[in-house]
């Protein structure tokens, strides 16, 4: 461990490399986390199927490459397809559990995640899939630091998606309805908002966000039917850290988590990378619950 820290001192370019790689994977976590914050805040559902929706988005982008299209199209296409998948899931399952005890929605979405895993396994098989975006690599500081253009695109895409979402929630009628429903579903219903439609749209938007994130994942990393869980866990963490109503906070927390994780992997060894994430979660929860006990959170 000390040797690894010394290595950072000897080769300072590594710090930049780790930071950049961390920020870029963090951006993808952030996109999935926006969706989770929305669904959690508006519908009071902790969406355990989040990671599987991300994987499904990745598989859709992969499918496009099988049809000879660039996987870059996967970002909008997966988002649109997943919107309808999400709305469908809401109609069949989520709307029946949305107002209930959180435990029921946890179980229901957990069941959905198993179902989706098996379906993806049946359709695309149990091997990892990746798609080549055709983008290259940039080199900084005399070839010592490399920046994959795909990851930069993923980063930019994630930030743009976040910005669009924030504006959408602030300005559009549906966005305002979503926020109103999040604050008080009963009052929103009394004031004429069709909360069931709002829920469906919210869940659809969440799935679309996951789909876009998945298309970025398949181009920058890889997808597999059974590796969705880390995305669920990271989303959950980011939302916990940022708070439900705080979308800019989600971006910052996502980026920070990605970078912290990467540094921890380097310094402690990758075997402790995930353990570090969970330790961090515990620390943050303790700090939050002591410092911010009395502040109520709602979707602004």
């Amino acid at each position, binding site marked *: 461990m000390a040797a690894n820290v010394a290595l950072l001192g000897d080769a300072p370019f590594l710090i930049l490399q780790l930071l950049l790689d961390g920020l870029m994977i963090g951006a993808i976590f952030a996109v999935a986390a926006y969706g989770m914050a929305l669904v959690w805040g508006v519908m009071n559902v902790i969406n355990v199927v989040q990671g599987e929706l991300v994987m499904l988005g990745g598989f859709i982008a992969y499918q496009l490459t099988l049809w000879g299209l660039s996987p870059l199209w996967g970002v909008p296409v997966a988002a649109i397809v997943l919107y309808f998948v999400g709305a469908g899931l809401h109609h069949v399952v989520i709307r029946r559990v949305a107002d209930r005890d959180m435990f029921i929605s946890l179980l229901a979405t957990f069941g959905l995640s198993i179902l989706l895993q098996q379906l993806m396994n049946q359709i695309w*098989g149990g091997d990892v899939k990746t798609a080549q975006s055709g983008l290259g690599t940039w080199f900084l500081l005399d070839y010592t630091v490399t920046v994959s253009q795909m990851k930069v695109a993923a980063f930019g895409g994630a930030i743009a998606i976040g910005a669009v979402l924030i504006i959408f929630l602030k300005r559009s009628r549906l966005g305002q309805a979503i926020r109103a429903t999040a604050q008080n579903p009963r009052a929103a219903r009394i004031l004429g908002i069709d909360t069931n439609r709002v829920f469906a749209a919210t869940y659809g938007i969440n799935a679309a966000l996951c789909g876009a994130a998945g298309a970025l994942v398949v181009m920058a990393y890889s997808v597999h039917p059974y590796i969705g869980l880390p995305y669920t866990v990271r989303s959950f963490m980011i939302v916990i850290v940022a708070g439900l109503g705080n979308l800019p906070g989600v971006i910052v927390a996502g980026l920070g988590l990605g970078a912290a994780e990467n540094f921890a992997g380097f310094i402690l060894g990758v075997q402790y990378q995930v353990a570090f994430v969970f330790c961090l979660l515990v620390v943050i929860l303790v700090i939050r619950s002591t410092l911010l006990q009395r502040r109520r959170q709602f979707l602004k």
Partner: protein
Amino acid sequence: MLKGWAVAIGSAALGLSILAAGDAQAKVEGDTVYLGAAVSLTGKYTTAGEHTQRGYDLAVKTINDAGGITVGGNTYRLEVIYYDDESTPARGAQLAERLINQDGVDFMLGPYSSGLTKAIAPVTEQYGVPMVEANGASLQLFNKGYRYLFAVLSTTEQYLASAVALAAEIAEREGRDPATLKLAGAFENDPFSQDIRAGVIADAEKFGIQVVIDDQLPPELNDMAATLAKTKAVKPDILVVSGHSKGAALAVRQVEEMRVDVPMLAITHCDSADVIGKFGAASEYTLCASQWAPTLSYQDDVFGSAADYAATFEAEYGYAPPYQAAESSAAVIVFADAFERAGGFGKDAVRDALAATEMQTFYGNIRFDETGKNIAKPMVLYQIQDGAYVVVAPTKWAASEVRHPTPPWSER
């Protein structure tokens, strides 16, 4: 009251199962010998489970089409009874019980993966049912004193040790002391890759090679950037990565993306991750461990040469056989041979015949040591050269010379 009922139902069930067990007899009906197998047809091993099943099926079909096996002057056909173990060890163990107790199977073929084999082996052992397995490579299967377990494949610790040996061999040829070499390793934190790690570390110690990075990738990790950044800084001579097909895809992709210059990159699961198809030129020079290759010069009477097997398999299923299929076919051949030598279908006679196996199959030489693992077949090492897998080690079976060192990215 409730308790009373539970006891009654329990004892009735027990009685029934004893009846069923009593009913079971050696599953040789008429001219058909039944083998049992639990394979993964759903769940996370679906793809590999299917290769396993197809390997078994192809060997059974080929043997039957050629007239079956001759035991004690009579000819018999082979047939396999399959169940889907859903890729879960507990289910595998249950199904093994079912195959033995209800279906009366006396001979078992292995499931896919070390984990499932570990779950099933105690069951077959308990009933004294010989099992020939082809897809459980973990060394831990062979230090438990099992008498009825036989494996045709090379055990895990040999997977990438051959790459370390190759690096040392090259260094010596170039007049360099292997002890000056530096090795970086990244191994997924699961039993399979940790076995591989043990083999690599042991071999590195044997040659005095210094291990400069020894990272254990969490199974859920989808990014190797931290390990590779470190690799760039310490500049090892060999980079070894093991993490099933995810590890293979990540390693090849990110080594290129991050322009990690390393003279030798050795990984597992190249073919199942399809690194050539996905990454093209970026995968060149990569070394891949494999149990078997169609270009090897082994042969037998059932399929002919390794190349003949590949052709037969491709004609039947429309794709080139992965080694998982080849070794599964070999397991059936080994059973057929043991039946013929045993001259009957007594479990212990067949077990003893299996233990005395000494033969060449298209898949490789087969001879079991006292723990049941095959010690006659080495692992092979492929290198990706001009967009194709070429065997480069062990030198005895190699088709081509290894290309070493990998040129730096600035020249590729």
